[in-house]
């Protein structure tokens, strides 16, 4: 079975074509160029490399968020359009989990996090080779997250490109228990995304239309409107 994987959830970009679990080609880059300009040309390049036509793939996997709102939407829009028009099933995987998968041989807890600005993060905590969920992906203050992590006895490996921004805070709170991975492990890899997607059961192709990103946060205007409704 041939998979196409797409991750554009933060500044890095990764796309891959994997056949029966084996990478045929994978591109990982962090050029800081907008995905709107780079994503489709990179996908085109990937297909040229492997000398395949778009309709030769059997399924598509995409990082569904959280992350940059615009970034997630570009990946999801491309994946959704391809899946619908090529009549292939589409599976979404948490973009936090995709990065965590780079470290799934670690024996302790794996905390994957992205900066959500103003001392907030998107985070998910996993354990073991199969990345069993310990803390669901969510949006919270970095302080609250670290307090929660203190309650576990296991060492915690932090992954994600934004980890360095919070390193001092993490060390202060967790001390020896906090571990940091080497830099290149922080980049999402579409082959890992596909690995995770392969463990899921394939949804029907009719489900593609209802596929939406998982932002883990309301749009600000929406949140304020809901607040107003409650008061109302």
């Amino acid at each position, binding site marked *: 079975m041939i998979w196409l994987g797409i991750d554009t959830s933060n500044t890095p970009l990764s796309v891959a074509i994997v056949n029966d679990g084996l990478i045929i080609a994978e591109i990982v880059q962090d050029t800081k160029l907008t995905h709107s300009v780079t994503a*489709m040309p990179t996908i085109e390049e990937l297909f040229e490399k492997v000398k395949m036509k778009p309709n030769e793939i059997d399924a598509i996997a995409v990082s569904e968020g959280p992350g940059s709102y615009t970034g997630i939407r570009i990946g999801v829009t491309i994946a*959704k*359009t*391809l899946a619908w028009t090529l009549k292939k099933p589409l599976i979404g995987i948490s973009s936090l989990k995709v990065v965590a998968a780079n470290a799934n041989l670690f024996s302790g807890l794996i905390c994957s996090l992205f900066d959500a600005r103003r001392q907030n993060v998107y985070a998910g905590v996993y354990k073991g080779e199969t990345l069993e969920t310990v803390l669901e992906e969510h949006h919270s203050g970095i302080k609250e997250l670290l307090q929660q992590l203190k309650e576990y006895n296991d060492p915690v490996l932090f992954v994600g490109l934004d980890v360095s921004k919070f390193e001092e805070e993490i060390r202060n709170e967790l001390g020896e228990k906090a571990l940091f991975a080497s830099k290149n492990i922080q980049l999402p890899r579409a082959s890992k995304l596909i690995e995770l997607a392969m463990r899921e059961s394939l949804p029907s192709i009719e489900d593609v239309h209802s596929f939406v990103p998982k932002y883990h946060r309301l749009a600000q205007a929406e949140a304020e409107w809901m607040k107003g409704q409650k008061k109302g």
Partner: protein
Amino acid sequence: MENQNIILAIETSCDETAASIIRNGSEIVSNVVSSQIESQTRFGGVVPEVASRHHVEKISLVIEKALKDANLEPQDLDAVAVTEGPGLVGALLIGINAAKAFAFAHGLPIIGVHHIAGHIYANALVQNMEFPVLALVVSGGHTELVLMKEHGHFEVIGETRDDAAGEAYDKVARVLNLPYPGGPHIDRLAHSASEGVEFPRAWLDNSYDFSFSGLKSAVINYKHNLEQRGEDIVPGMVAKGFQDSVVEVLTTKTVRAAREFQVKQVIAAGGVSANKGLRNSLEQAFQKEGIPFYVPPLNLCTDNAAMIGAAGSYMYQAGIRGNMSMNGNPGLDLKSWSI
């Protein structure tokens, strides 16, 4: 040169998710618009992040419906046209990336269309264009007088120096406590009143440019002064006074430009061209001038993909092609594509 092609067009520049199939630049084979108006009304205007979220939810469904309504398969198409700008960047990106993915999947060329060129070409769907054409483009984001000497040739001879006409309508509607979008409410109120408040007209000397911010301030001051005296405003009179000022300036300048450039056709385009007061005034003026005047039907005045398909079809014929690195351009200039 005969224009033979079938174009899939996609438009997501603001709060409508739209797709359409256009044959030969003039025939609407299908035209699908999914509006977010119910959602956006809550916020009293279009919130970009909310608009982008809606687009990604609806995009594949809308394109599928356009193909199904047309009873066509992707291999029947010649190209994919999509709004490249101007518009809300996050919203544009959904249409552009969907268009690129679709085009890639089926080996089709992609064409980036200017949103205003689209509004003008809405007329090609109902009327043969005879050049030179003068187009008055009035919408929530635009107030422009565009001269076209041939297909794909655009010369902006006048534009707003501050608010767009539609923007002024929305702002004045807010002053009158009317719901969003304000245009239709003001139009209706204005027709209910027999007399309007006298508001100033911004002529800006001999220029074809427009300005509506002074008028907007005059309305606000008028309301404020009355309130200070403990009097209530009569909304109908304010609406009529405001609309009369906007309509008179737009009509007078359009007539003057039509005379100066000796145009064969005048067309109105954009959401505000659905306004009855403006339509009537322009119709009467150009009847007197003896110059044919056209406004597309309402569903082609507001944002839609059929108009993008019409413009895209002429661009296709002219050999214009985009590529996979096309980006959304919120400030895209109205460039000519003809030689």
